[in-house]
């Protein structure tokens, strides 16, 4: 199981949980599993999120691997200038 940390603004959409455990070995699998557990997260994920895996910020690549002990944070997706 991977522990996924949500930013505070997402918690009301995930039954108030700060951290959600999901079964996943890729970024894409993780996002799918999050929505499965908490459908309320769908809109925020569709709007664009990044996933920080062990400090690396994954903006797009759904095939990036995740280990069970990875540190995972959901983040809002960057828009740069």
């Amino acid at each position: 199981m991977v522990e996924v940390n949500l930013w505070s603004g997402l918690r009301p959409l995930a039954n108030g949980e700060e951290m959600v455990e999901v079964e996943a070995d890729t970024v894409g699998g993780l996002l799918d599993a999050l929505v499965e557990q908490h459908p309320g997260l769908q809109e925020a994920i569709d709007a664009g999120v990044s996933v920080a895996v062990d400090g690396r910020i994954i903006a797009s690549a759904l095939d990036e691997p995740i280990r069970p002990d990875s540190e995972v944070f959901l983040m809002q997706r960057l828009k740069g200038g």
Partner: protein
Amino acid sequence: MALDDQKGGFKFIGTRPNRPDGLDKVTGRARFGADAHASGMLHAAILRSPHAHARIKKIDTSRAEAAKGVKAIVTRADFTQSLQPAPGMKGENWNILENVMAGDTALYDGHAVAAVAATSALAAKDALKLIEVEYEPLPHVTDVDKAMQADAPVIREGVAAGTVPKGLHPNVAGYHESGHGDVEAGFAEADLVVEDHFVTEATHQGYIEPHACLAQLGADGKGELWCCTQGHWNVQKVCAALLDLETSQLRVTASEIGGGFGGKTAVFIEPVALALSRKANRPVKLVMSRAEVFRATGPTSSTSMDVKIGMKKDGTITAAQGVFRLQGGAFPGAPADMTAMCAFAPYALKNVHQIGYDVMTNRPKQAAYRAPGSPMAAFGVESVIDELCNQLGLDPLDTRLKNASHEGTKASYGPKFQRIGLVETLEAAKAHPHYTAPLKPGQGRGISCGFWFNHGGETAVSLALSEDGTVQLAVGTPDIGGSRASMALMAAEVLGVPYDNIRVIIADTASLGYNEISHGSRVTYASGLATIKAAEDAVKKLCARAAAKWGIPEDAVKWEDGCAVPSGPNAGEFPPMPIAEITRKMGATGGPICGHFEATPEGAGVSFATHIVDSEVDPETGKTSVVRYTVVQDAGKAIHPTYVEGQFQGGAAQGIGWALNEEYIYGEDGRLQNPLFLDYRIPVASDLPMIDTVIVEVPNPGHPYGVRGVGETSICPPLAAIANAVSAAAGVRMRQLPMSPPRILEALEKQAGDG
């Protein structure tokens, strides 16, 4: 991908050759957005709302259509009807359409409501006067704090994203909240807590080249578009969605670009020109005036911010919290999330909490401007840290060093940092002679740190070898900061051929796979990485041709200094085979040799900077001068140091304008009062000191050569560093930007009155 294979021993990387496009640009040969012409071309002009907020009851174009030379007029009815509004950013294409051409409501002064194509630019402008629009003015709001109040007019119902807490005004389109620890407990541990309110005004990216395009679209849905943009694949995608086209049938070519700074990541006039062309069945050229650029293209958000930080006497920060309200114009999307996430990132904090509000008003849709949101956040945060240091008698650099984030620090926005170079920038700033140079009476010194994430993004690069062994390199990211030079250097490094033997072009949308916009400081990182990989792909094929010639296995050949050579004594003895010897016969030895690479690299390293500023304030007039400026920034690895320094200096120069003079001024009527460079004053060369630069190189583990983006971080510290310097020089804390002479005099007079 394992991308950390080489970090030193370079032949070309780190040198400073002239940029490949330099001669074109200084001789006028380079073609910018407005430089394109086509046979039978029409000229277009756009009618814009004179109201800040008004219902469009009726548009009558009949008189304009009858005018001499007019060939087509478009309104919202000429764009797709299939897009629908949706909450938050889900309805972004609808938002773009609504901004490109108003629907039933004009949402800001300058909002497009109709457009004309005619046989001359004058005829098009004259025809605008014949279009009759019946407006019903509505109440408006342009201030971010007022837009959040209960009695504020609602810009549009139903915009709020699902993450926005219930009970907030409908103008709050987005909400971000993050942090960790217990800030109240942290404040209780502090010896001193400073809390303050800060305000920044909207500023424009100020690119010298206005938006311009030449469009051709036939009734068969096939189109060609030439435009100045930071991302032509995005233009292609958006235009296709707004005009019901198949994406691949619209070929978009990026012109040279006369500045963008984030403002040309958006789409404004291109769909309008295409719609006119489709209707007139003629090519249509559309060029914005400067006033249109100011009124209808993206300025940055204005902000209202509250920052509170607690500190111990020894300088340890015990807790930090910030509330950042961003005015984003009449659409969702202001970077409230980035503002909040960047705010405290330079510091290792046990207790931190940040909230961002994305707020809609009757102003043009905000657009990215170099590290969107981060400079404003730094202004608030670094001003409070400066005040804490002043009141506790602490050295501002040592205090920042004491609290600095480093590898392994839990960032204020959540995850742990990988290898970062903030401490190195602070140490370099401390060692710089500027930091200890004496100040003259009336002068003050300020410092600030700044942070930006940087980005990777979808990237495709192709490289083709010519028979003479020279190289054509096609990238898809418009060159907004000297990137052709950097790409050529990276390709030269891999191929071992002279820099001048490589011609770099920005390919059109039909020639490469999708390339994300040149934004997020991603070009040298992502296109650079793809260039290296494409060159390595070509090298592999070159080695294979040599192996075939020598009759040895492919893995028995390696590439050295532009030649195939046997990889070791067991491979056999063969003289080095130069690239030109292989390419001369490539047609007969297997065909053309090309290299390519397509990926979404995800290893863009975050970056930090520290700036030192000396300023001088005239207490009689309130005029401020920046007398000395030093930028210290981590570039990871400077591929072309001159252009890295240029990015550092450019960020500082734009920050000086933002801090001291630039602002959007709205009247009570909600109309922009200063839509010209005469009244909206950007710094000119004579306003600026020589901006000194120090390149720190802490390699990014996510790039083969260690590159970190540099284009945006350079604008993160200036607002705060200048504000701290001006506050020190004036002897009064400046909490509102720009620090124009009237504001400085007002602050001095208020302080004298209070005293």
